[in-house]
């Protein structure tokens, strides 16, 4: 019997238990070479003093981690703080805002396709292009926004030029640009909920709020979890639009952690420090993700 079992592994057909892994092999190979190994390598780099060129990497233990938290410019902590500010603005906006957009578009009877395309379209534009367009719109002296504000008698604004408004403006631009993805996921989630449930609830006298609270929300839970995890990760990795819209200014008030990491690695040539920052960011994201899995009680089945 045992012999028979072992022989299974040498079968050249679908009976072989290794059969499914054959299909995974191409992806796994690439994944290991281009993602898994570099990730592990970055952990090693984070413990070395390495400037890309020049002297060979020197082992420094955990002192890179110590340095990024204690160096006098405090830019890592500062950019972490800015990133949290972005996340505080962006995550609820993306998670809730795009849900309401999806519910609204799901409910409209006419022009549904038009609305769907409108909200999704910005997503396909390159981040540099959208950022440059918004720079023009927001420009304090020549921008479109101030032109229209002037027409209705509002004083000119320089939204990207002041600490008080710059980050929130970036959040708004990011939402405009990125709403398409969560919007689409919600929309398909909504369409998966059988109409019969709503019909039954209506007969029992439920109003729109009841339907939303007791049918839509619970049945969308996996989608909500997915979107909020993705949005938190995305928020902590925000970079492109910030870098182009403000370059981290004014006076570093919008410098985000990935930008700081990028500059540390590729402008300051401090690969070890940059890798250490990446691992700190990774740990933060893992903690958040685990918390979210708890909050949304992932894996618990819900049936009606």
């Amino acid at each position, binding site marked *: 019997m045992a012999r028979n079992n072992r022989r299974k592994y040498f079968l050249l057909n679908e009976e072989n238990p290794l059969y499914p892994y054959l299909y995974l092999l191409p992806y796994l190979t690439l994944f290991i070479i281009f993602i898994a190994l570099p990730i592990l390598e970055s952990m090693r780099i984070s413990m070395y003093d390495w400037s890309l060129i*020049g002297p060979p990497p020197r082992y420094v233990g955990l002192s890179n981690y110590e340095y990024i938290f204690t160096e*006098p410019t405090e830019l890592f902590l500062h950019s972490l703080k800015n990133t949290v500010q972005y996340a505080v603005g962006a995550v609820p906006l993306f998670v809730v805002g795009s849900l309401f957009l999806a519910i609204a578009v799901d409910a409209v009877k006419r022009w549904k396709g038009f609305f769907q395309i409108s909200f999704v379209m910005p997503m396909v534009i390159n981040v540099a292009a959208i950022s440059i367009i918004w720079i023009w719109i927001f420009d304090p*002296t020549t921008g479109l926004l101030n032109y229209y504000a002037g027409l209705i008698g509002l004083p*000119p604004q320089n939204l990207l030029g002041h600490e008080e408004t710059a980050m929130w403006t970036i959040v708004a631009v990011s939402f405009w640009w990125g709403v398409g993805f969560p919007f689409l996921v919600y929309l398909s989630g909504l369409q998966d909920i059988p109409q019969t449930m709503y019909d039954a609830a209506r007969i029992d006298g439920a109003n729109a709020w009841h339907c939303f609270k007791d049918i839509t929300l619970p049945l969308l839970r996996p989608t909500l979890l997915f979107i909020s995890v993705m949005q938190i990760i995305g928020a902590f990795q925000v970079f492109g639009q910030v870098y182009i*819209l403000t370059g981290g200014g004014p*006076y570093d008030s919008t410098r985000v952690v990935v930008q700081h990491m990028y500059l540390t690695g*590729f402008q300051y*040539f401090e690969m070890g420090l940059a890798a250490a920052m990446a691992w700190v960011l990774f740990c933060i994201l893992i903690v958040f993700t685990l918390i979210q899995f708890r909050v949304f009680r992932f894996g618990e089945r819900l049936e009606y």
Partner: protein
Amino acid sequence: MRKSLRVIVVAAALALLLVLGSGIGSAKVTIDFWTLFTGPDGRVMGELVERFNEEHPDIEVVMQILPWGEPYYSRLATSVVSGEAPHVAICHDYMIPRFASTNAVLPINESMLEVLELGEDMFYDAVWNNSGSYEGVRYGIPLDFHGFGVYYNVDLLHEAGLSSEPDALPVTGDEFVAALMKMTKDLDGDGTIDRWGIIAPLDWFRAWSLWAGVWQNGGDFLSEDKTRSTWNTDIGRKALQFQVDLIHKHKVMSPELSVNPFLAYYQGQAATMISGVWEVLGAEAAEGLNYTVGNHPLIGPEKVYAIGSHTFVLPVQAKRDAEKERAALTFIKWILDNNLDWVKAGQCPSRLDVLEVDEFRNAPYLLPQRTIAEQGAYGRYLPKIIPWSRVQERIVSGIEAALLGKKTVEQTLADMDREIDAILARGR
């Protein structure tokens, strides 16, 4: 049978041709040339490379344009590490210490200079001696130099009763401020200014003006041994105060900072802007703009200007190849012999003989180059330290905080000193 034989014969002949052909081809030396000229200047360099290749049947230069800034230099660095570096590359003067101190670029020795047939007497002193050297050793050959000037809107100068003649343009900081005050206007009389004397320059342009201001007052912002930052001195405060005053005291500079200030000048919402000599291409293209260029104001008694250069460097190869090195030097020499053509891309010439050429002396489209070229004789380069870009970033950020009134001048400079000292102490 016979048919297939014929096929074989033809194939063999072709193969032979190929082998011979490649033999002929290999007499040609191919070298890679990396640049960071992503704008119209890249097109100009591309045309120069094409002309060089036509005139030199034995050399083929393959130019590659990479985005400038961080990606360019990190890719140049990785290419050296992986042994796939280009044979010639463009490198800013302030990046020389990074590449020189790590032996990523070759020192340019006497015998190479002989091939180049270039010498001190052909260049501005400062440009030849300071652009491409690090700790007394030459690593870069200056292609050009660039400085900052003031772009004036001629119509608005005249409207304010000012002359646009080159000799009548402001020279000192006080003259500059006086002219700006005349051009700053509240056109519709609603109590707010709608035409600024000067648009707030781009963030790092402000930094260039700042250290120029320190030098013009006879000071410096790093200690002689380059281990300490010395911003917070009377001279440093004076230089920063000059910029702050433009906004808060004289009210001639737009208080709103923008990442794209050029449009406001091009559209006449500001009478002047401070920008680099390369801005000539934008000014020439701006529709309906009647512009002239004056030198950067001198806010102190010393006539010093902050300048920079693009230099040619020879990145270190996995295996040195004398033939390719020679081809690279031939190419550098040829480009420098055609310095005027490069100047048209919006740079000042590094070679003095260009100054004598009629086209350079008279062509209206070379006005900014001609004006700012004066800085060559009074030019000063950035300190040659390895972590320069990190230091500059702290200066840029500090100025922003001061201009926006977030910090006092004194506080700004004290913070700058503290941060820069830490960067210098780390040293990379």
